């Protein structure tokens, strides 16, 4: 079924809508499909406003989205169009888009019967709730709780539900009472197309700490190479000088070279040897007063 024929069979408003979406798809470097299920429309408006300038969000009927994707040669994204979704476009790169969307997510309460998206933990600490039946609710929900100092306290971080499990009525009540909002609500990226490649959200999640660690180890490795290969740079010349002078000093002390620069160290070394030998001598009578009872260094 060619787009040509379809064009003639759909009403004008749909035609315009599709053309609009195609225009949007064409105007961005990266376009993706986001899941918007469960986001109240007011919050969706807020998010759209927040994204303004970095990304554009558009919601339409799924049939029209699919048609637009087909016309823009983006069929590869069609598989993500199901349920309540939107199209997002940006000139940022997909990793940046993912980061932006994750950052815009807000915590939300979870209700009874919902599936936990991640482990739910009730943290250790004073709940601030007066002693009463709530301590029993906490315990029933799986938290280590007791009454202490006139209030209900959670005695250790307690994982009360694991990701994928269903929230019970008791737990939902407890979480509400404690103000714990375990859900992250926001635009959930299902897939992004950019420069010929479709990225899944898993691929887009960047571990910044890992990159930081990589940089540090790259810098350290380069410095090592510079020093070990004796290729001085502005950053490593000082280290090389220090290394060379340390080597000279080690040689001088080892060989007991009579140099004014080493005299202090040689005297110190002789003294250290004297003390070391004294430590090895069991008979106190054999030692002068100052060398008795020397603590054996750890």
């Amino acid at each position, binding site marked *: 079924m060619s787009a040509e024929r379809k064009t003639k069979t759909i009403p004008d408003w749909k035609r315009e809508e599709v053309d609009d979406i195609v225009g949007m798809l064409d105007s961005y470097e990266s376009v993706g499909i986001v899941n918007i299920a469960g986001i109240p429309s007011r919050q969706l408006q807020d998010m759209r406003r927040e994204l303004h300038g970095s990304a554009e969000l558009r919601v339409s009927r799924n049939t029209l989205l699919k048609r637009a994707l087909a016309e823009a040669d983006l069929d590869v994204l069609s598989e993500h169009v199901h349920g309540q979704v939107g199209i997002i476009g940006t000139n940022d*790169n*997909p*990793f*940046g888009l993912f*980061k932006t969307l994750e950052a815009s997510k807000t915590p939300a309460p979870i209700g009874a019967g919902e599936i936990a998206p991640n482990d739910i933990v009730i943290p250790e600490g004073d709940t601030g709730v007066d002693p009463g039946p709530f301590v029993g609710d906490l315990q029933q929900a799986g938290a280590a709780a007791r009454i202490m100092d006139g209030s209900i306290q959670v005695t250790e971080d307690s994982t009360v539900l694991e990701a994928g499990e269903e929230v019970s009525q008791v737990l939902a009540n407890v979480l509400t009472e404690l103000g714990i909002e375990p859900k992250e609500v926001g635009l959930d990226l299902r897939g992004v197309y*950019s*420069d010929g*490649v479709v*990225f899944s959200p898993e*691929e*887009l999640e*960047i*571990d*910044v700490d890992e*990159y*930081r660690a*990589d*940089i*540090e*180890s*790259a*810098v*350290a*490795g*380069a*410095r*090592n190479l510079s020093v070990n290969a004796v290729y001085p740079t502005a*950053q490593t010349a000082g280290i090389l000088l220090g290394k060379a002078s340390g080597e000279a000093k080690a040689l001088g002390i080892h060989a007991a070279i009579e140099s004014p620069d080493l005299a202090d160290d040689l005297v110190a070394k002789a003294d250290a040897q004297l003390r070391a030998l004294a430590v090895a001598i069991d008979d106190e009578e054999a030692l002068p007063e100052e060398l008795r009872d020397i603590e054996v260094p750890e």
Partner: protein
Amino acid sequence: MEYVYAALILHETGEELNEDNLTAVLESAGADVEESRVKALVAALEDVDIEEAVAEAAAVPAGG
């Protein structure tokens, strides 16, 4: 690590750390550049203070 080294070169020369520049450095070294890795690196480095990471690396001897 060539991607990270490329980023560090650009950092030293003061050039912008963007996809085009990274790709250029890597290609000049004969690397098969994976666009997605370049993209990921650029995005990741937006959140990394390279100056600070370099200073920190300098303070600690690299593991032997």
